[in-house]
């Protein structure tokens, strides 16, 4: 399990697989099929693929109409445009109407890299999470991404599946089971809980290694399903360890950190540290450079975990 693949690479191939399995999937893209990999779907099922050009509001609206007429409509584009540019369409035409539209944009987070802050979406989980009826999945690798897309396709109602541009190590076996609302405890520990999502899961595992070398036992949870969130797994782990660190490639406002804070505050108030982008926009740079620039590293997670473990 040492190969590296971007979560976006699962998009086109999984959508093809779903149609092959008999799911009535259609795709609406906004001129980014090569980047998002929906071009793979277009090649396989050209009659089920619709390109609206550079018009994200129309992408969401057209997908809503396809869903009204019974299709399972996936949309493409980049996270920044699919959520922000078309927010009112997502809210009213998709969520208020309660339709089978599945947003699966790519290029979320700062790992977009050199394109800079205009294109690095770090507010999307917050925007999508607050919408009534919207489910939010943040896969940690390409295997989880394929599972998230299958779940979205086969579960009624609106979904947001957050996909990334950068290659990430494969963490899950092909036969790993993913469920809506279920987190995965990837490592058991007793001194601190690290709850992570997306590309930060692998870094959380590295952080646990760093801490283990120091004699601190960290539990690592992949919060694959941000909404609905696995409040049972999170609160049980918090009860065991007594403190939590969250790690996300997203603003610390409104995303995983906030979702976990809500669970802890209501169920088991324990010390919490949030690793994420600290109320700022992205900037140009290489992805790895940017992850260090914004403190999204195993070292930062480990440092927060150490603070929490020692505080007790």
């Amino acid at each position, binding site marked *: 399990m040492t190969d590296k693949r971007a979560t976006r690479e699962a998009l086109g191939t999984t959508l093809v697989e779903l149609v092959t399995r008999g799911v009535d999937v259609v795709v*609406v893209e906004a001129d980014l099929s090569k980047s998002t990999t929906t071009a793979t779907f277009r090649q396989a099922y050209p*009659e089920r693929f619709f390109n609206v050009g550079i018009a994200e509001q*129309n992408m969401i609206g*057209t997908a*809503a109409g396809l869903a*009204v007429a019974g299709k399972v409509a996936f949309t493409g584009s980049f996270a920044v445009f699919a959520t922000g540019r078309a927010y*009112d369409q997502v809210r009213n035409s998709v969520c208020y109407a309660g339709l089978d539209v599945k947003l699966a944009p790519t290029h979320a987070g700062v790992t977009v890299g050199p394109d800079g802050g205009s294109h690095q979406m770090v507010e999307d989980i917050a925007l999508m999470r607050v919408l009534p009826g919207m489910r939010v999945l943040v896969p940690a690798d390409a295997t989880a991404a394929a599972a998230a897309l299958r779940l979205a396709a086969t579960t009624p109602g609106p979904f947001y599946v957050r996909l990334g541009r950068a290659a990430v190590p494969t963490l899950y076996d092909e036969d790993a089971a993913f469920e809506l609302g279920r987190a995965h405890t990837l490592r058991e520990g007793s001194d601190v809980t690290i709850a992570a999502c997306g590309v930060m899961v692998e870094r959380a595992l590295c952080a646990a290694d760093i801490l283990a070398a120091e004699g601190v036992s960290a539990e690592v949870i992949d919060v694959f399903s941000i909404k609905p969130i696995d409040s049972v797994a999170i609160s049980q782990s918090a009860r065991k360890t007594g403190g939590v660190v969250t790690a996300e490639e997203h603003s610390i406002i409104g995303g995983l950190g906030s979702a976990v804070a809500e669970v802890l505050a209501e169920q088991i108030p324990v010390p919490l540290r949030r690793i994420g982008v600290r109320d700022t926009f992205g900037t140009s740079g290489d992805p790895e450079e940017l992850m260090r620039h914004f403190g999204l590293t195993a070292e930062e997670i480990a440092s927060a975990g150490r603070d929490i473990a020692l505080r007790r």
Partner: protein
Amino acid sequence: MALATDIGAVQDLARRVRRDIVQMLGAAGSGHPGGSLSAADIVATLYGDVMRHDPDDPAMPTRDRFVLSKGHAAPVLYATLAETGYFDREHLGTLRRLGSMLQGHPDAKKTPGVEMSTGSLGQGLAIANGMALALRLDGNLDSTVFVLLGDGELQEGEVWEAAMFAAHQRLTNVVAIVDNNGLQIDGACDEVMSLGDIHSKFAAFGWDPVSCDGHDVGALIDVLGSARSRARGNGRPIVVVCTTTKGKGVSFMEGNADWHGKAPGTEQVARALEELGAPEGDVS
């Protein structure tokens, strides 16, 4: 040409719908009479003559579909659905109340016969396009998607994204209708934000624009009834731009932007009903 008996039946339906609109808005104490009344003849023509639909089987696969993109005109849709048998007219008195199936703007999850939830302007044409694509993909070549837009609504950018798309996809199973009453909340459209020549704009986007008097039921039956075959014939989506009067049928509301989003009081309801006249077959 439309038959006199068909015209009479639709005119009677439109009169009933207008009476319902005035009464339900009076009872609700809020809502949008102007744009509901301007669209009454259009919507009555669709449900009373042009569209294939069955109130006893709202999900009939071969039905024609209607999307009210100008969702604030919900009363005209609710009244028409009630008058054509989708639900009991008693519901009209619950408009905009807590727990009512008749929400301030159309909610397809709550109201039988409403195909799609709308209300945020500019979104209906893209939705109609998506529905039309799905029908085509499923091999349903009979059903037509009718979508009604307001003229002020054409100021929304998504309308033109969708207009471009429909022409590109040669969606001849979508019929767009513009309720061109010339007014929006803040006043005349030409003063608030000029729409320019609506026909030329749609033509430039690859559509086939057709004019119609939006209150001449005979003309509406002819134009809307033949729109689909005309679109098939020339391979371009068709838009019927209907010249209408905001508040049509109620003298003190006609042509007055102040009646865009204001409900009539008790005395005004009475005056309006007197002007509209009793529908055929009614004793009162």
